[in-house]
């Protein structure tokens, strides 16, 4: 069976959940090999728990301070060495850029934002703001596929997890864009927006007061999101934005509070499994999408809902 390379998405060696999802998908396609670009001991145990047969380790001491290009170069060399059946990468901004460069370097086709990948590999994407789904495949070179969070439920399957160091040769040309400064995003104590099983998002209707949104999110163990209107008003940082120019989320449950549901917002949340909305305006387009909607003031509905959830928990 062909190796399937999975680029490990991690923060200082802490493997992100999306990587476990990629390893699970890789198992459908062949033998999962994790590619860890980082410093220190590779998180081999975490990776083999989700089925990594091999763990290639690329020491990033020399390339950590540069944007995207060196990672693509290292990965291209590994593709040449291993001739994998496919390369799977998380669909983050950086992941997609690595995929794009890798495609040019290896003369391969690239597919981004897959919400599902099956044997073939055949991918499924959601396009035009979720109005269409598309099945596609790569027909040239090594299929390079970026996969969105929550595309698969991670399955624990023990892999061999054999660690193998890989010495990549990085060109000076790849070191053109330097990361001068990096401020890790401060943890909110809530799940990461794109990974969360439940998202509670607020919009213009909050009037800038997100306390009810935040409280509901915490009672549900959810991430907090915001519409572009709320972000543009300065009520939440851009990292919270759900929509075309923010994050795309696909949680089990999406709660839209005071969000009208413009096409740009829908593009970021339409593939959520269950959608509920609270909005004063019964004509709001968001109600066309919902499984359950409440026409009412979020400032009274949300606190009452939070109280009810808390009391049900006992």
């Amino acid at each position: 069976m062909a190796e399937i390379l999975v680029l490990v998405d991690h923060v200082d060696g802490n493997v992100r959940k999306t990587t476990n999802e990629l390893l699970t998908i890789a198992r459908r396609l062949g033998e999962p090999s994790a590619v860890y670009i980082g410093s220190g001991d590779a998180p081999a145990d975490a990776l083999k728990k989700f089925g990594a047969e091999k763990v290639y380790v690329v020491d990033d001491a020399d390339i950590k301070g540069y944007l995207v290009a060196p990672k693509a170069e290292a990965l291209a060399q590994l593709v040449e060495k291993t001739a994998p059946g496919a390369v799977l990468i998380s669909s983050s901004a950086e992941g997609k850029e690595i995929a794009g460069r890798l495609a040019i370097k290896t003369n391969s086709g690239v597919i981004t934002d897959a919400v599902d990948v099956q044997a073939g590999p055949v991918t499924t994407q959601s396009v035009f703001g979720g109005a269409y789904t598309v099945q596609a495949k790569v027909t040239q070179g090594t299929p390079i596929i970026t996969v969105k969070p929550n595309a698969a439920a991670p399955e624990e399957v023990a892999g061999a997890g054999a660690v193998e160091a890989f010495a990549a040769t990085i060109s000076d040309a790849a070191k053109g864009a330097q990361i001068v400064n990096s401020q890790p995003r401060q943890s909110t104590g809530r799940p990461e927006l794109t990974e969360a099983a439940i998202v509670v998002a607020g919009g213009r209707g909050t009037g800038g007061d997100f306390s009810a949104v935040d409280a509901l999110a915490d009672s549900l163990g959810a991430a907090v999101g915001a519409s572009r209107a709320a972000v543009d008003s300065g009520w939440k940082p851009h990292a919270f934005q759900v929509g075309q120019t923010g994050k795309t989320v696909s949680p089990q449950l999406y709660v839209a509070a005071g969000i009208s549901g413009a096409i740009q917002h829908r593009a970021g949340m339409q593939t959520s499994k269950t959608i509920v909305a609270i909005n004063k305006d019964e004509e709001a387009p968001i109600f066309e999408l919902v499984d359950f909607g409440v026409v009412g003031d979020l400032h009274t509905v949300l606190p009452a809902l939070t109280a009810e959830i808390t009391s049900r928990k006992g």
Partner: protein
Amino acid sequence: MNIVVCVKYVPDATADQRFESDNTVDRVAVDGLLSELDEYAVEQALQIAEKNEGSEVTAVCIGPAQAEAAVRKALQMGADKGIHVLDDAIAGSDAVATSLILAEAVKKAGPADIVVTGMASTDGGMSVVPAMLAERLGLPQVTFASVVETQGDQIRAKRDGDTATEIIGATLPVVLSVTDQTGEARYPSFKGIMAAKKKPVETVSLGDLGIDAGQVGLSVAWTAVEDTTARPPRTAGEIVTDADGSGASALAGFLASKKFI
């Protein structure tokens, strides 16, 4: 400074977007316009040009005849000239081929100091072309910039990643992609609209760019769309009106029935 800004003509996202029988995006029968996300690129290109006297901004576009509208819009906003790559053989090109054509079109605009693009298109939305363009042109990429500053031949940009906010620095020339956080794009003034009519737009074919038609288009694309399916309309959900506080308990009941609480 020689600044090239890449603009895409896209189907209007608020209109009915659809596919043709060959699974390509219908770009002809559907109303199109300059991609909103590329307006931010044009704006940043113009701002950099305004700070660097003697700069020239060229808007580059690939697409069918109607796509010239995207170039014209950029010219109305203030770009100096346009290049429109128009060739029947281009239809159905994927991102890999698009980046090839774009790279050659950018070279045609002369050695660029900065190539500016939007963060994504509003139709395909892959966000990979800027990185591919940098790869093909052999330039550093300064991408997903939410704040851009240039000084002499240095560029600094703020990039909001998933897990960190970074400051990226590079020496020109670079490929720069900008997000909608960089600031409102200007509206064309009446004067700008009139002036744009006299600005030159060069229409070029693949041959003019030295690209073999066999390298691009649907039949040689490195990815193939096998099937497209319109999403079934969501079955109408239950809508309740919150009278006397009943809304929250009805919603709680729904969430409990779905095992969320």
